[in-house]
């Protein structure tokens, strides 16, 4: 039984805007065990990236974590001072950002940007030690060590993304967040990068949080997963269990909207309507207005709450109570 590395409990985060507070993350709880990969799936704007940013507390200035707790190795991170957070960042939790293209400072050499991170967390390392470290990282992600002295614009998109992974691993973090790391890449490179992440994760026994809107990628990459809708988790559990036996209507719709490569061409299902505005206070089931499976046994008026329906498999009370 491996131990829990990251425990997130009842996390709430909102953006203060001129037209009112936008609750981007609502009562989100999940646990990531050592060496486990955890997937977070949902449509654009559902709060996946807000969760990632809250974990590192890198959210924009107008974003506030109003309640909840984030424990890394048992240490509470909510309410930490900036200098304490700086120590945890990259050393405890590192992140592979959405747009690898822009993750590099264009005027600093790639090697220097990785070196900078190591220098910050291991100030006593010598230059040679750091160079060796970067070389071994590059080797792990399949890059040539000469790339160190290149500028970001001299690398291809795939190379940049590999280098970003090397950067994320540079301080031996406990948890790596991959926030849609393959968004800007073509399919072939996407596949290579995914394999690379998988390989590295297994090699180093990392805990990985994989964020994506692509449920197929989540299926391939993760052991456990959570489905997010309108800022809250509506279903979570072991990936295989959720794919075999989806409980929440939104999860079912997501699965139904994924094309299959084999078999006849079928018209894909798409959901009617729009996700709700997060400015408005949502009472009860947030998915009810769009739910294709509504029937008389529904209780959309119940406050959202996860209930266990199978081993380690949780689903929102509204879908769980339906017959």
């Amino acid at each position, binding site marked *: 039984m491996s131990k829990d590395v990251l425990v997130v409990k009842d996390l709430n985060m909102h953006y203060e805007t001129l037209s009112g507070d936008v609750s981007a993350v609502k009562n989100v709880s999940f646990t990531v065990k050592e060496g486990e990969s955890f997937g977070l799936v949902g449509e654009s704007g559902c709060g996946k990236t807000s969760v990632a940013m809250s974990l590192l507390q*890198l959210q924009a200035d107008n974003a506030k974590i109003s309640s909840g707790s984030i424990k890394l190795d048992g240490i509470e991170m909510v309410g930490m001072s900036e200098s304490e957070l700086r120590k945890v960042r990259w050393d405890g939790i590192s992140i592979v950002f959405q747009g690898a293209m*822009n993750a590099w400072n264009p*005027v600093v050499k790639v090697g220097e940007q990785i070196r*900078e991170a190591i220098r910050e967390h291991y100030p006593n390392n010598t*230059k040679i030690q750091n160079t060796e470290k970067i070389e071994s990282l590059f080797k792990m992600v399949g890059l040539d060590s000469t790339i160190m002295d290149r500028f970001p614009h001299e690398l291809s998109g795939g190379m940049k993304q590999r280098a970003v992974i090397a950067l994320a691993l540079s301080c031996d973090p406990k948890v790596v967040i991959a926030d849609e790391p393959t968004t800007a890449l073509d399919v072939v490179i996407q596949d290579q990068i995914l394999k690379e992440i998988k390989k590295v994760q297994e090699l180093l026994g990392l805990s990985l949080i994989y964020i994506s809107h692509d449920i197929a990628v989540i299926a391939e990459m993760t052991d456990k997963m959570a489905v997010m809708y309108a800022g809250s988790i509506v279903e979570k559990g072991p990936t295989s269990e959720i794919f075999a036996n989806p409980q929440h209507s939104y999860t079912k719709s997501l699965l139904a909207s994924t094309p299959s490569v084999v078999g006849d061409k079928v018209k894909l299902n798409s959901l009617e309507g729009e996700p709700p505005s997060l400015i408005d206070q949502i009472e009860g089931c947030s998915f009810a207005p769009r739910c294709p499976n509504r029937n008389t046994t529904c209780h959309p008026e119940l406050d959202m709450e996860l209930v266990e329906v199978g081993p380690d498999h949780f689903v929102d009370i509204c879908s769980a109570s339906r017959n």
Partner: protein
Amino acid sequence: MAEYIIRRTFQMTIVFFLFLVFSYLLFNAIPGNAFSSLLLNPNLPPDAYQRVLEIYGLDKPLLERTQMYIVNFFKGDFGYSYKYFPKTPIELIAERLPRTLMLFSIVNIVAFYTGFFIGKVLAWRRGSKAETWITVTSVFSYTVFYPWFALMMLWVFGYKLGWLPIGKFLYPEKWYDAPFDSDVVFTSMIKFTVVVSLIQFAAYLASRGIESLSLRRNIRFVSLIAIFIGSYFYWNNGEALLQKPYASDIAYHMILPVMVVTVVAFAGTALLTRTTMMEVLKEDYILTARAKGISQKRIRDRHAARTALLPVVTSFIFTIVTIIDGSVLTEQIFSWPGMGQLLLQSVLEEDIPVAMATFSFVGVFALIAHLLADVSYSYLDPRIRIKSQG
């Protein structure tokens, strides 16, 4: 790169040639000439004016004169000053140049660094009360009518408070029995400044490769201390000790012009830095840097300000070009006998050889500065590579 510089030098030569021809023709388009006043003098023989014109070759047709001037110019012969006859323009410039260079290089460096520093702090503290006020002040000092501002400062600090001298670059009474010319002092002051900045630059380069940030900072600090101690010994020994009172007299006279021009000049840099840096701060790599756990100051200086530097340096290099023509106004107000005054005087007196020489000096200066700007781009932003073709 070498090919590029050679090609640019060739282009610059053509531009400079055209520049010479047009300025010579323009100066000759001014009605009358430097010797017209001889005609008004009843004590001179009537043919004196004509003879003087013949001596200087001014009786020849304009095109022939232009051709002769250009040919002689490229041979290195700039003629004689009409006003200070035995002196050549080069001698006059050599006397004036150190004064202007000393004053305005200090002004520009001080203005650039304060402007860049204030600009990056403004962008970093966006939205705070201090930011608003400093931005408003910068806009004021950027747009203020400069001669008025300079005169007001002279009035306040020179006249009302009496802390600083009103104009001139030295107290003549102090220099009556000076064993050397003021230019000697100026030259040694410039030499001193150049050596000091070279040492600091060398210390910076040497410490760049060091991995530990604290050690790097310490080395730079120690080099700064060493410079202070070194300059203390330099000014208290040997020849420099003799020059010290005179040098400090010049330095004392420099305070007010440096201050005034800096106040006016820093604002442009500060506002430009602020704008470009606010753009840079939105970039994803700033978020990456924060996620890496790097300190705020380092993100500001190393990531944000470094990338925002390019347009700022561009505008700065174009400011350098205006050192000499910009000095006309300043030197007039502060009675600073430098290149600016020489330029103005020679134009007013139609001392064409001197005016041509000073103007071509400004021209060469501008051309070289533009070349430097282009070359420095490729260093500041590696994405800009100078192509050999096209």
